[in-house]
């Protein structure tokens, strides 16, 4: 850790972690490779292990989804369409949370990195954007 900081390897390490996270969205396991600042890491990482590491985050996401339904006084069955977006929606374990709750037929997705900006711009051009604020 000290070698990584002293040799300014924070950014390359961040990029290597991002790369394997993206790979694990598509495959059951992927090779993690990092070399820099005198530190060499070469390891196979399974999607299962990754899902264990993010288990607390997955539980928090599910709890947030439940809280939204409670606040809206709606049951999962009352929801017609769920649109998943953001880079994290590409993680299979996150998609699985919503599949379990709403069923695959009600899930929609697309433009994972750009749809939020589109949506905000469309809200901003509505007559009363304040209606959309929480």
């Amino acid at each position, binding site marked *: 850790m000290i070698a990584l900081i002293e040799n300014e390897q924070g*950014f390359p390490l961040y990029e290597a972690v991002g790369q394997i996270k993206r790979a694990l969205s598509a495959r059951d396991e992927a090779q993690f490779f990092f070399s820099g600042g005198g530190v060499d890491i070469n390891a196979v990482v399974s999607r299962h292990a990754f899902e264990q590491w993010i288990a607390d985050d997955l539980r928090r996401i599910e709890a947030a989804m439940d809280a939204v339904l409670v606040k809206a006084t709606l049951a999962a069955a009352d929801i017609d369409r769920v649109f998943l977006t*953001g880079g994290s929606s590409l993680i299979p374990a996150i998609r699985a949370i919503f599949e379990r709750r709403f069923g695959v037929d009600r899930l929609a997705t697309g433009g994972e*990195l*750009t749809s*939020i*900006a*589109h949506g*905000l*711009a469309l809200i*901003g051009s509505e007559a009363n954007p304040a209606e959309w604020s929480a």
Partner: protein
Amino acid sequence: MTESAPTALGLDFGTTNTVVALSGGGDGSRLISFEGDDATGEIFRSALCFWEDADVRFGVASEAGPWAIAEYLQSPLDSRFVQSIQH
């Protein structure tokens, strides 16, 4: 010109990436694309880089997004690179 000027700007300032869209000037919304050397189009990395430069105002120069990354990689020991800025 069939479209009027946009009236709204959507800014998704994300932990990893920042994306900007304009709307209100016709149907739908359109993304802003950043251009130039090192540019990455519509997906702009949420990152900043600062470094000392006696020739600029206040003696500290800065870049953002893909240009921050390029500056940092060019002289990592003489600059300060910041990302995940919201945290």
